[in-house]
């Protein structure tokens, strides 16, 4: 079976020089949740943005292939790319408030996609929106449809965004730190919901996060990044084991745990950062 998303040697560079993503390869199969893990500056969000074609102005793709099913997203005409986004590839953003238009009711924002991308009638779109809200376990979906985003809690807004993301039955969802802004009990509900929806619809998910705890609970495979390079790639059991690379293990040791005393916590040794930065520098010298 060929993967839904296949990224080969993706390179993202700053227009003023220097690389943000250094020849990263990874693939996501149907029905798989693939974790993209790293600290700030590791390049995880840049990769997600490259897939969605929403890189910031200062950055551009300078190499590689982003194959989605049979298309290379990087070669696709803009119009064709736009028609894929939302319908075939959807996003669950980090901040549920910025992901929604504050001036429009939930009903309008949900039915837009269904009407314009899928050509449903007004009545069908509303009925489908209602069904989707039920599917993401929102009580009183009728009432929620008539609300504005600010009238909903953070968890409710994230449920609405998940409903929107799944509304067109996409084959790939990019989830960009989807639970970082939420309370921990709500985070668990949202993680469970993403997993349920993803399993029910067989969706491939590229799950961007900095949280190894979240990774352990929801991802099947993981790519660990540092300075725009792949440090490690593998199944979740390998990543979470003593077989993992020194950087991944150091990240684990630097993650506080409520079930362990303070002396179990060790900051990431500086030499590990330095070695990885040196590899990045060597890459830059070889690829100016």
């Amino acid at each position: 079976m060929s993967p839904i998303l296949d990224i080969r040697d993706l390179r993202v560079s700053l227009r003023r020089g220097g690389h943000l993503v250094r020849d990263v390869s990874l693939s996501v199969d149907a029905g798989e949740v693939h974790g993209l893990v790293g600290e700030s500056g590791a390049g995880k969000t840049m990769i997600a943005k490259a897939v969605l074609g929403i890189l910031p102005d200062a950055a551009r793709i300078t190499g590689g292939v982003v194959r989605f099913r049979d298309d290379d997203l990087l070669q696709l005409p803009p119009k064709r790319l736009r028609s894929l986004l939302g319908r075939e590839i959807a996003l669950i953003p980090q901040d549920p408030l910025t992901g929604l238009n504050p001036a429009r009711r939930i009903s309008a924002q949900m039915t837009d996609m269904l009407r314009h991308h899928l050509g449903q009638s007004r009545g069908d779109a509303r009925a489908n929106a209602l069904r989707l809200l039920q599917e993401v376990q929102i009580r009183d979906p009728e009432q929620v449809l008539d609300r504005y985003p600010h009238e909903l809690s953070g968890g409710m807004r994230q449920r609405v965004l998940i409903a929107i993301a799944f509304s067109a039955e996409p084959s790939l969802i990019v989830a960009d730190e989807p639970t970082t802004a939420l309370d921990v009990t709500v985070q668990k509900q949202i993680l469970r919901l993403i997993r349920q929806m993803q399993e029910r619809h067989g969706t491939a998910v590229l799950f961007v996060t900095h949280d190894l705890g979240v990774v352990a609970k929801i991802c099947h495979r993981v790519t660990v990044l540092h300075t725009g390079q792949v440090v490690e790639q593998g199944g979740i059991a390998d990543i979470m084991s003593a077989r993992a690379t020194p950087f991944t293990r150091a990240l684990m040791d630097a993650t506080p745990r409520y079930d362990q005393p303070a002396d179990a916590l060790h900051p990431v040794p500086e030499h590990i950062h330095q070695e990885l930065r040196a590899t990045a520098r060597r890459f830059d010298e070889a690829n100016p």
Partner: protein
Amino acid sequence: MSAPLLQVRDLTLSLPDRSRGGMFGKPPMVDILRGISLDLPAGQSLGIVGESGSGKTSLGRAIVRLYQPTSGQILFDGTDITNLDEAAMRAHRKNMQMIFQDPQSSLNPRRRIGEIVAQPVLALGVEQDRRAALKRADLALDRAGLGHAFARRYPHELSGGQRQRVGIARAIATEPRLIVADEIVSGLDVSTQAQILALLNGLKQDMGLSLVFISHDLSVVRVLADRVMVMLGGRVVEEGHTADVFQGPRHAYTRQLIDAVPLPVIEPDWLDSQPGTEGTRMVDIKGQTVLVTGTSRGIGKVFVDALLAAGAAKVYAATRNGDGAHDDDRVVPVKLDVTSAADIVAAAGTCADTTVLINNAGINFNSKLLDTDQTDAASAEMTTNYLGTLNMCRAFAPVIESNGGGAIVNMASILARVSLPLMGSLCASKAAVYSMTQGIRAELAARGVAVFAVLPGAVDTDMTRDFPPPKATPADIVAEVLAGMKAGEADIYPGDMAKGVSGGLAADRPAVIAEMAGYV
């Protein structure tokens, strides 16, 4: 032993709720903190954990008098600082500093780091002379692990971790005895976070600092806090040694919070454990002290056995004449007629350790509304079913709250949502119960008491002899109620009839009303 450095006694705080109230007139006041007490000995650290809206940040701000408490007392080093004016507070400010979540927004971008760190030293009169203040800033920057060379730099040249070190340097520059740190590592990468936590632990030991460490992250609190307080809805639900609380939480909310933290270990069942829908807390009967009304027969009687089987620590079995004796010694019979105000007051006193209240007592006269000779039925049903339940809620909500939270379960009926004219007066009383339950749920939402409405269909008891099938058995109803509480379903519809009618109402309300009318 000397007195604690910081003592807080029964602190309450009310602030205007700016999300409500019109363009004119004052917005209504909302209770942010409700009777907080704590002791912090010198050199110790106290973690405060809770979710958004728990009041943890407001408590931190009230402690350093950024908010004026509404009532209660704050003692710092034995001095009552609760009502000191700002001039009098100034003498204490150098001894109590606060570090905020976002160092970026609290650092003046035009000032050099050295000046930023020296600012409180001058402003609070620790040094009168600018050069002496800058010297203290250098020392503080060294202690914060940045090195005094950073004094010449500007905030924008710094990484997030470095900016947070500046925040720490500024807080320790006046050599305080207490630091209140609010979410100071939450935006940081774990490798930076671990360094900042290590720095704070070192400073605490070297400088003998006392620390109030506020965070939503239980794992981070474990690293720094000797003791921990768990907050919910402006109250403390649990307090104790950090390791004890996290390894053996006593309160249901603490357990729920701990359970939701994703540890970096593979646990295939974790995502599906304790399913719940948003808004209602999940309540497990295990270890709870439960009061059930109307236990002489029917559902109430079955409740007692089911609660024991589910691991309740104690069951108060309330009946009108107090004859609820049981061979299990966890059952305590209580004489309680819910229509008697005196009985209710007495029960709230004798059952003061109640954490879950199940309002099961109810009556049904099988009376129509107009064409009936039971003219007293409506009044009697209202008195027992509605007012009895309401008065029990009024008496026991504060009891449950003071025990750290719990649940109230009100037995309504599917007939609360659609009238069966055959029993029109019962339906009206059950509709009142359901409406009242929603209202109480909203009032108690932030106060640690989950409120459940149970809307069963016909149950096979002697009260429903005349009602046509299908009827559910009391055992089935009770089992579904306990499962619904555990899953956090606000409205519980036990039995096929309840689910059928509820589904019917959602799909075609007029058809259900017509069907019910047909039984007259």
